């Protein structure tokens, strides 16, 4: 049976967006809700220092900014930028409200989805508070592994194309520190590859438990 959320958004035509295109700016009114069919979208804010702080990455199948929509926030809290080429289906907020009306099944699915995403956001915020550069990178890798692939395998390749700068932004580190930490993790056999990173989940889990 098709997921009621996906079924609802399938009524909207797909739209293509280029890598680095900003879909939603912080402070924008919430006029559209996006269903991500293909690609990845990063969610970030800009710190007073001017640096980006990446808070979250949306995967195919995700809907945003659902938390803001269902908490009735008038405007977007973050920037939403394409991390790769993206295919998304957009529904105007008013039209989505029409779909939800009298549809208990869709309402239940949206509550569950939004609360699950809220938990993941909280997990990421906890990760950002971890002390130590290596622990931050390991927390990020654990988070990305849990979000992007089958974690039942011993080694997995992250689906998300990441640059060192992306890792630095997601960990609140400088690019140089992120490079050093990623290098050390490669030396320890936890990580392999550059643009397409492969993570040894057993070693990653051991490191997380120790630190």
């Amino acid at each position, binding site marked *: 049976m098709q997921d009621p959320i996906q079924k609802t958004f399938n009524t909207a035509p797909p739209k293509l967006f280029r890598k680095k295109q900003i879909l939603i700016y912080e402070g924008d009114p919430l006029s559209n809700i996006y269903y991500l069919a293909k690609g990845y979208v990063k969610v970030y804010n800009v710190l007073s220092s001017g640096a980006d702080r990446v808070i979250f990455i949306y995967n195919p199948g995700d809907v945003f900014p659902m938390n803001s929509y269902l908490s009735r926030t008038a405007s977007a809290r973050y920037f939403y930028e394409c991390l790769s080429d993206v295919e998304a289906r957009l529904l105007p907020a008013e039209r989505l409200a029409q779909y*939800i009306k009298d549809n*208990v099944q869709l309402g239940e699915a949206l509550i569950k989805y939004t609360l699950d995403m809220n938990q993941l956001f909280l997990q990421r915020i906890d990760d950002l508070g971890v002390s130590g550069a290596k622990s931050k990178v390991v927390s990020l890798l654990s988070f990305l592994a849990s979000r992007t692939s089958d974690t039942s395998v011993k080694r997995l390749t992250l689906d998300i194309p990441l640059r060192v700068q992306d890792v630095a932004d997601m960990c609140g580190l400088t690019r140089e520190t992120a490079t050093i930490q990623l290098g050390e993790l490669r030396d320890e056999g936890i990580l392999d590859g550059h643009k397409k990173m492969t993570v040894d989940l057993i070693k990653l889990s051991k490191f997380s438990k120790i630190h």
Partner: protein
Amino acid sequence: MSKSQGSFEITLNPSGFIEEKYIGHQDELDVISGVSKLHYYSKKLSKQNKPVLILIDLSELGTTTAQARIEGIKTLRTLTYKRMALYGPLPSQVLANTLAFVAGKQNKVCAFGTRAEAICWLQQAGLAKNHARPNTKNI
């Protein structure tokens, strides 16, 4: 005057709005029980030709059953009220706002993070003048 029936409390605030607080896990019977009191106060205010404004505290709400949520939707549709403001943590806001969308009452029902925001929105109806709650310092 306040009455407590286990997992909810209901009060008719001196400012003229109905206040209800849900505490802990809520099943269908809890909601039905809470709603029957809401109906009682709603009718009472309507008879006095006063607008029915409702303030619901979800700050200590626990889990809810699917049937309880369905009862919540029915209430939003059938209860007579001008506005209903709810407040509580984000999961409770998401829950309340989604039920309002399902009931098609999102223009009359809205959930907020704080009591002050919720009362401010009720006041926008231009009808609840004094929102002070007995023993409440932070408003």
